[in-house]
């Protein structure tokens, strides 16, 4: 059965409560914005297929997005979803400085649970509030990301949709680069990467030999 994707990658959204993690996910997966979203209990789940470049024949990555609860009381539960994550969106709220200062804790927790090669993107959400309520300058966030080994930084607004697509596309491309450069052992499930054996077999004989034993 043909599937419209080449790879599946697991991505987790993490960050303080109320940063807009769920709104980002809903914006990406369903293209809408709900200004009165309930607080997340445990985790939510959504997925979206993203082409890694703009060409029509581009390979597609299906992002399985695990949107975790930011509240402290769910920490024990959410942590078990970090395992096997290929990518992560570390979200903070640019209008609340505390959410940015907590980012380091989230990062440490993520790195202690997830794979070493995890692709992390720092996301400053609510950039529609940048004019009058900004508390975290973009430059500072970018510098912090670099200092902590995070390769990409974007500012987004789940409300207007600005930057949301880019955030996930950046994440998908980063993962794709890693796949291509052989960072992941595709037989090892712990990276959270799965290859569409049926489709890949047509284009990539090399991969088939390794992973195609199931049929």
């Amino acid at each position, binding site marked *: *059965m043909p599937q419209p994707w080449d790879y599946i990658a697991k991505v987790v959204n993490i960050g303080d409560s109320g940063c807009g993690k769920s709104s980002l996910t809903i914006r990406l997966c369903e293209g809408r914005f709900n200004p009165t979203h309930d607080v997340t209990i445990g985790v939510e*789940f959504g997925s979206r297929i993203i082409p890694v470049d703009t060409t029509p024949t581009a390979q597609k990555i299906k992002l399985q997005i*695990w949107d975790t609860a930011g509240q402290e009381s769910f920490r024990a539960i959410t942590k078990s979803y970090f395992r*096997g994550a290929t990518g992560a969106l570390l979200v903070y709220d640019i209008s609340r400085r505390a959410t940015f200062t907590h980012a380091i804790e989230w990062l440490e927790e993520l790195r202690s649970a997830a794979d070493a090669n995890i692709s992390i993107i720092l996301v400053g959400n609510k950039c529609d509030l940048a004019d009058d309520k900004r508390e975290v300058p973009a430059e500072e966030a970018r510098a912090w990301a670099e200092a902590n080994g995070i390769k990409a930084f974007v500012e987004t607004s789940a409300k207007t949709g600005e930057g949301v697509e880019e955030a996930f596309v950046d994440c998908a491309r980063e993962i794709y680069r890693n796949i291509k450069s052989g960072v992941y052992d595709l037989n090892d499930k712990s990276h959270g990467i799965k290859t569409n054996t049926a489709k890949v077999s047509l284009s990539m004989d090399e991969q088939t030999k390794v992973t195609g034993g199931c049929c």
Partner: protein
Amino acid sequence: MSLLGILQAQAPPKQDATSTIQTLCLRLSTSTLLEDRRAAIMGLRSFAREYKETVASGGLRGLIGTLTKDSEDVDTIKVVLETLLLLFVKDESNPESSEDIALWLTDEFTQKQENITVLIELLQDSDFYIRLYALQLLVAILNNRPSRTQECVLTAPLGISRLVSVLDDKRDAIRNEGILLIINLSNGHTDIQKLIAFENAFERMFSIIELEGGIDGGIVVQDCLQLLNNLLSFNVSNQSYFRETGCVPRLAKLFQFAQEPVPSYAKGQRDTSIEYAMRVCRLFVVPGGLGAAANQNAFFNAGILHLMLVIAFSGFSDFPVRAEALRTVADLIHENSPLQENFAQMKVQYLDPTILPEVQAQQNNPDDLCYVIEGLLDLALLNSSTHAFDARLAACQCLESYFAGNQPVRLHFLNHAINLHAQGDESANVLTCLINLDQDSRGDPYRVWLASVILLHLIYNDEEAKNLATSFKEGDADAGEEVVTMIQSISGNLVAALEHNYDPRIIIGYLMLLCTWLYEDSPAVDDFLNEASSVQSLVSTVKQSSNSNVLIQGLCAFFLGILYEFSHKDSPLPRATLHPILASRMGRDHYVNKVTKLRENPQVRDFEVFRETNHRRRKMGLPEVYFDHTFIDFLKDNYSRILRAIDKDPGLETHNTINGVPHALNGISVELVDSLKAQLEDKDEELQKLQTTCLTLEQKITQEQHESQRAKEAAAAEVQKANAAIDVLRQQHDTESRAAAQKARSEANALEAQIQRARWESTESARKAKEKADAEIAVLRRRVVEVESTLEQEKLARAVEVQRVRADGEAAVKEVTAKLHAAEKETLFAHEGLRQSEERVSECEHRLKASEDALKAATDRAAGLEATTRQQTTTLTSLRESLTVAEARAQHAEKKTQEDQLNITHLEENISTLQTTLKKEEEARTHAQGELAALETRIKRLETEVSEEQTARKKSDEVAAQSAAELDDLFIMLGDLEEKRRGDKKRLKGFGIEVSDDEDGEGDDDDEEEEEEEEEEEEEEK
């Protein structure tokens, strides 16, 4: 791959699955008609296997919501549950399925209490599938998030109760699923275990087991036993509930038919079930457990001990079952002396250890009986089958439990063994096995090993048993045989085993026994050191570099350390000789290295971790069991002491107290100990003496305290007395000084009075003198009258003379007035002097006041003294000192007062001098009177002059007679003269008073001056 290709080719052009699923999900959440929703759910169910992720992400909430919303519609609920179960299933071949989906589903339930509650509510539905699926869902959820689910079930109203009631369901599938769920649910949660037990779970379990046909009931029975295991493990409350609700006999009933033969296909399951049941038994009697003793008795009364022994010694039982039975027996009698004695009296079926188990089963003869101890020894020592090892070890454990905490049993056992050995009895005997290292023993290394372990348990921490073993001797000296002790036999065997490289288990067995035996037992060490070559053999083993066994080398080194630690200067191989052998020939570092390696070896280090599991895994060859747990405890406890033993000087000894042999304390030379003992005795005596003196001293102290109290009081009294004395003195002084002052004042007054009198007298005398002078003047006037009468005669002749006379008179008057002036001045002086003297008197009074002040100061000081005396009443000695000081001060004060008195006497003296001066003054006054007399004489002289004048006048009378002629003229002149004379008279009158004053004053003034000067001098002297 090709198959997939074919499928792909055959498949019709498909609708996009993802969008279909999304549509279905939307329909599920929005449709108002039940039929529509059901259709949507059925659609989702068909996608659930393949598109787990999509179905879950879109439909999970709706599916769960339906459980509540459409709970009446059994068909819908059934489909929903089926769909949810499909989502839980892990499908490796499907890339879209992931563990996270199942986890997410679990969290969706466990994070929302109402979802779990709904699932539990569904269990009330009698529909088979709904019940089953609900149970299966709960099992799946429980597996993913155990502790969270336990809490949710605990929170759900009647949660536990509803789950347990599922066990009554007549449909096996549901009941068995329920058992599995409760097994998982009860795992590790004490509260849930209690709640389940109170839902009559024990009763229900035994009912199910009986329904299933008892111990042969198969996997369900095993599950039931597993559940019992969960409920009872480390749960004392449930254990006593189990015991008190009469479940123990029902448990015992399981073992009653356990030794009956079963078809071979069912034997495996039955053995497993029996082992599970035995494990349940052992939960109650964990050595050292809280209710262990009560449980042991209850189990014994239910006959379980006997049943265990029957199973353990049944020819039909396999070795694993026999081993578990023996372990259960061991726990049942551990440290319970009535049961230990009962146990020894029990009889079991005799099994010939030399024949194979298969043959035993055929020869099963329940009537051939022997005592259980014999049976155990036969099994442990003589059954050389490798399969039997577990059972042999368990038999050894049984014996250990039989000895545990029961010295009479140990001594009886050891005596019995010695007797049998001496008699040359053929039955299994620990001593025989240890002493006779024959071909059979070498072929079955565990025979020596187990014999060593049994003897080790007999003598470990039991001096009496140890002495009994040490004193054992063999060989008849009279018959010319060499007499050897057991230690010598064993050490001989050990040396042989080392030299011939026997199985390490034999060597380790011997070494374990010797280490525990010789530890802290110098006589035993001496016994061993009698054979010096044994030490050489041990040293060379430690030094061996090729083909070395870490365990053996380490143990040899450890044993050498014990030998050295507990040897002494009188040992057959003295410490001084032994030390260089170890420290130089073997090498100190080598020793430390080997002992450390032994300690670090996993066999030693991790012994406790692998204790029960390690040896069961091995299929080929001998098990990897080298150590006994008691020995490992001993080794770990004493490791560091023995490791450091080699660094101890040979002069320092470590003897030990074993009945009547010279002993000493750890690490101290004997001489030192002796001298210390002597010193100690001396010290004791001294101490006693000191204690008695201490007692007397204490008495003294109390006496002295009393005394000091008294002294304090006395001192206070004295101080008071001193104060009183001081007061008295002060008062005296005051009165005295007041008296003195009064006296002085009165004297001064008297003086003043005298002065006044003197003045009065002087004025009086002056007045008298004036009167006299007046009288004289009157006389003179008379005479003048007379003269006038004569002058009438003389008239002219005498005019000149009269003039002269007048001039003379005037001169005399002038003189007198001058003198009068001087006298006036002198009187002024005298007044001045008087005033000064008065001042001096007041000054004198001031001084007096000053002296009074000094006295006051003195009393103040006395008060200060009193204060200090009070302060210094704290300690006796200081009190005394202060007392003397106080006394000294009091004396001082007395001195002061004496001084004051002196001053007063001084003052008195002054006063007396004052009086003398007064006398002098009086004298002076007499002097003045003298002068007055002189004045009077002068007046007399004046009179004489007047008389001379008269005579002269007489002469002039004669002249007058001659000049009578001229008399008439003279009368005229006399008239003139008379007029003048009257004026003169007037003038003279004034003069006359003045002259009298003048003459009185002088003498008084002089006297007073003198007196004042004297006073001044006196005061200066003061």
